């Protein structure tokens, strides 16, 4: 979705804001989709257009390693147009699209379809993840080289496990041949079985079927050993346990090329959220204990966990309107991810810099990309007012999925402006936005 135009677009200056990373006042000037200049207050070159962003912070646009756009195939849950607009509303400018679509993104044709739709309907950059096994069945290798050629930035198996260790080993070896990054959500299916909640106090009390931590850690151990042997670049998606963070530290010490992410909701909520059988909090991996939450936060603070993802999973209302076990897992989070992070900053559990690193540079580096504000970088920017609050509701959210974690609560952090390649992807006050 990189648009090159022959005639030059008027230059744009964002005036009166502060750089989120340093807190310094700065005027950011954008020309032809790229950052032209970052200057101190009053010293910027004249631009053809200016926007006053007083009181706001300017960050690089957020990068999401795990987002479900539901297109092709699941139109009742969302589509590329609705979910990319939601992403822009949440300050995201780059989305990795999960291969778990229908049909599965296991061929160049599906990748092309996604990119074609994105080119016309998405105002943010969409980077498809290719299915590493055909149909995500975990049995046969997909055409990985072809998928990469069509534009997939990494290979993964969506939220489904590759049950067979021999297949997993060959997936890694084949991906390594082409220098591809593999992304897996670690879950040992035999140990997870029919579970849908953390195997802990709440599950014991409510009689919920539990998924023990060892379902995740046993899968991570297997993946780390195979990654070490094959030399593939491994990314572990959506960690949920304290022990997983320890294993990650140890693996890095051994020199294994491994990165990891955690979903934002894992940093805020615990299995306690299920204590009223609230099906919104049916997520996978499940929300775990307070000590797991603390360890995951420490992992983000220390940079052991590279990225925070939205793990955005829009659903139609019927998917959540059933007894807990019969509902589909997933929260609609991409529009509240920044606000959730700012709540953690308010509580002193993360610094603003740690939060933004995990939403920008961290995930970008997993993909071998960058997300920084510097001259000549793509003008992918998120301008947000950390002091303003908003209340997520069916009328304020753009996503087709309205099962977000915070009904009737106001949240800090309003995204005022999202620019992708210098173009407006989201503006909270459209009259002040630059013309596209």
């Amino acid at each position, binding site marked *: 979705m990189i648009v090159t135009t022959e005639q030059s677009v008027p230059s744009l200056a964002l005036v009166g804001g502060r750089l989120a990373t340093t807190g310094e006042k700065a005027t950011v000037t954008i020309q032809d989709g790229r950052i032209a200049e970052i200057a101190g207050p009053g010293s910027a070159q004249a631009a053809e257009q200016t926007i006053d962003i007083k009181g706001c912070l300017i960050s690089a646009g957020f990068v999401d390693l795990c987002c479900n756009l539901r297109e092709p195939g699941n139109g009742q849950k969302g589509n590329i147009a609705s979910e990319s607009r939601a992403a822009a509303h949440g300050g995201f400018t780059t989305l990795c699209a999960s291969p778990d679509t229908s049909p599965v993104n296991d061929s160049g044709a599906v990748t092309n379809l996604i990119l074609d739709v994105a080119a016309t309907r998405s105002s943010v950059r969409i980077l498809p993840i290719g299915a590493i096994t055909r149909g995500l069945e975990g049995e046969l290798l997909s055409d990985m080289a072809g998928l990469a050629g069509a534009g997939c930035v990494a290979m993964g198996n969506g939220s489904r496990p590759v049950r067979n260790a021999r297949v997993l080993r060959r997936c890694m070896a084949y991906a390594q041949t082409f220098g591809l990054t593999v992304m897996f959500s670690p879950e040992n299916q035999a140990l997870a079985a029919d579970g849908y909640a953390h*195997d*802990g*106090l709440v*599950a*014991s*009390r*409510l*009689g*919920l*079927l*539990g998924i*023990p931590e060892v379902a995740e850690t046993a899968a991570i151990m297997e993946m780390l050993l195979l990654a070490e042997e094959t030399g593939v670049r491994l990314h572990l998606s959506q960690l949920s346990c304290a022990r997983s963070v320890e294993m990650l530290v140890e693996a890095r010490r051994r020199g294994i090329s491994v990165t990891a992410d955690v979903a934002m909701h894992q940093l*805020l*909520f*615990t299995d*306690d*959220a*299920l*204590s*009223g*059988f*609230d*099906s919104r*909090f049916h997520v996978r991996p499940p929300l775990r204990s307070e000590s797991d939450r603390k360890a995951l936060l420490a992992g983000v603070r220390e940079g052991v966990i590279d990225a925070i993802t939205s793990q955005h999973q829009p659903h139609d209302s*019927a998917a959540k*309107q*059933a*007894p*807990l*076990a*019969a509902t589909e897992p997933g929260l609609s989070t991409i529009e509240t991810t920044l606000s959730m992070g700012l*709540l953690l900053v308010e*509580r002193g559990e993360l610094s603003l810099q740690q939060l933004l690193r995990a939403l920008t540079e961290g995930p970008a580096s997993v993909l071998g990309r960058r997300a920084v504000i510097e001259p000549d970088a793509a003008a992918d920017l998120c301008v947000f007012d950390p002091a303003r609050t908003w209340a997520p509701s069916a009328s304020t959210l753009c996503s087709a999925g309205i099962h977000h974690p*915070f009904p*009737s*609560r106001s949240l800090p952090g309003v995204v005022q402006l999202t620019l992708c390649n210098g173009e407006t992807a989201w503006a909270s006050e459209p009259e002040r936005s630059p013309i596209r």
Partner: protein
Amino acid sequence: MTAQDSLQDSLQDSPQNFPQGSPRTSLQLTGEGQLRHFLTLDGLDRALLTDILDTADSFIEVGERSIKKVPLLRGRTVVNLFFESSTRTRSTFELAAKRLSADVLNLDINTSATSKGESLSDTLLNLEAMASDMFVVRHAQSGAPHFIAESVTPGVAIINAGDGRHAHPTQAMLDMLTIRQHKGRFDGLKVAIVGDVLHSRVARSQIRALNELGAAEVRVIAPATLLPRDVESLGCSVEYDMAKGMKELDVVIMLRLQKERMEGALLPSEREFYRLYGLNREKLALAHPECIVMHPGPINRGVEIESAVADGPQSVILDQVTNGIAIRMAVMSMAMGGQMADRNRQSEERKTL
């Protein structure tokens, strides 16, 4: 207090915590603390549990009359919604509703709506539209009655007749009534629950009730594969060795063992289970001589319990069945009372507006 208010309160009490889930106590109680649904024993205090037992006591006498009816639910429609088959529980609920003079509709959902692809919500909304006043719900999934009471038909009184592994509150209360009849108290009692606690909604509700009513000790006796994780957090101690666990017991409650447990690699065989955890005369002799023997039924003779014990002098298993009707009459009439109070208040609020 509405759900919203208590959410607000819990936020103010502990600013460090985010709203997590929805509060459960307010779901089944009216603003005045009356029962309006009966979903779980969690959040119900000793006074209310005692109230249920006392009300049930008053209904036992009704069962002894020649005309076994009181007009408390006359003109009300009770729908027995059994998404999982059951003979005993359904018949006692049906009898209880009829003795309260309600109109009763029995629906075996396994063979009707859901097999045509209709969703649970749609089935219930249709039944509500037929002006039902109470749903008695049994469902294979934990939390199904909560879901119905909270999101589908909050204006219909929901009685949980057993949901997944979560709760079977009327069963636990009829057990409490039986214990009170035989022991006259809960203080100081030592009670053991033996067998498949992991899959048992009955055990979870019993542990909760015994703790709230003041039993001295609740032990669970089972191999580790049949216990939920951190089971002690429910309010019980764990004993793997049944001979040790039987010491000084006043009440022993045996749980039913499903045959499927062998297939799930939870147990090697019925024979080994019976040898280690089945209740026979020798093991019972280790308990207090006055120890009563209970079982929620249906009994697997020779798997959990020896016939001589099940039919023996210490067994109160059939008393449990009799008490089941009285407890269900108590809970149904109390929940209907709370539901009516709620409806009246709402209609008065509408008038004043």
